[in-house]
């Protein structure tokens, strides 16, 4: 029991209303409540946040970096999804 560690938690902070929560790092805590309190002390000592999310690290599923090319290929070949793909004739505005 003595060598049993507290679980690892990933911490996400919303720096101000109107912005997304953003990953800032991780910490160890016995439960979610303690993880939030520790995150407050570790990651927001200078008012960096107005809201905190924590999630146990082992609950996160990530894409495989070695498969990144295949995973994201569909977007690479569809340049027509960007407005810059299209020629806008001179004289046309508000487009």
């Amino acid at each position, binding site marked *: 029991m003595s060598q049993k560690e*507290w679980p690892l938690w990933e911490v996400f902070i919303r720096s101000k209303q109107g912005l997304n929560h953003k990953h800032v790092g991780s910490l160890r805590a016995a439960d979610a409540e303690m993880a939030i309190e520790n995150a407050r002390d570790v990651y927001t*000592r200078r008012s960096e946040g107005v809201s905190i999310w924590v999630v146990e690290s082992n609950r996160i599923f990530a894409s495989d970096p070695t498969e990144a090319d295949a995973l994201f290929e569909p977007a690479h070949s569809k340049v027509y999804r960007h407005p810059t793909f299209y020629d806008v004739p001179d004289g046309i505005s508000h487009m």
Partner: protein
Amino acid sequence: MKEINLTELEAAFQSKLDREIRIEPNDWMPADYRKTLIRQISQHAHSEIVGMLPEGNWITRAPNLRRKAVLLAKVQDEAGHGLYLYSAVETLGADREETIDDLHSGKAKYSSIFNYPTVSWADMGAIGWLVDGAAIMNQVPLCRCSYGPYARAMVRVCKEESFHQRQGFEIISKLALGTPEQKEMAQDALNRWWWPALMMFGPNDADSPHTQQSMNWKIKRSTNDELRQLFIDVTVPQAELIGLTIPDPDLKWNQETGHYEIGTINWDEFWAVVSGNGPCNRERVAARKKAKEDGMWVREAALAHAEKRKARQAS
């Protein structure tokens, strides 16, 4: 899963480094790169944590409430820095507790500067000014380190360190410009901390076997001697400004190079402290071990409580 060979992986890794693309935790990386980072980041974390001890020594004896609040905030920041770094080291697959056990067993090192005692209040000024000043010089280039989580942790740390250095300079300059006794305290602190601060940058480049590999991997961006020179060049005029004397009779300005030249660093002292024979090595490690052992029952109780509550919610 397609078959990928080692040469291709190494080439892809090197190509990322060449293009200044950061390496992230799940990316493939050479085993030695991972090992080097685990060693460097965990030792950096230990330095932050052990670094709380010399200053913690003065929290209860700060001369007034303002100084006490500031010092408390500063020491709390050091704890925070240690935690950002342990968080970064865990992204490499290292176990946080194991790295801490390595500190306690003496297998892992930490910055040798924290093995010197803090015998007067002026030492709080000298530490903030010189030790944090040297730490900033070391840490700013690490914000561009090739390993993403380490670089990001360093960005946070560097933002906070500049408060540390300024509060230290405020303490030392207040003393330096105070009564003759106060000035003497400030000078005494500078006398004791100057050389150990210069040693913080590590051995001369010629005697630093890891430097070249770390530079190739873009973990390290400047050499020990380059950073040490930078520190000397900015710090000497600061000492002059507040009327303190750098304790080096050989110190001189070289008009041609535009740099200060210093006397010889006592590397025997450096290696003695690194290998465990500084004034406070045993005391520092003993304090860390005691903190871990004394807090054990609290950590166990918190975990038991969390597990009990989880079981109750499930039923």
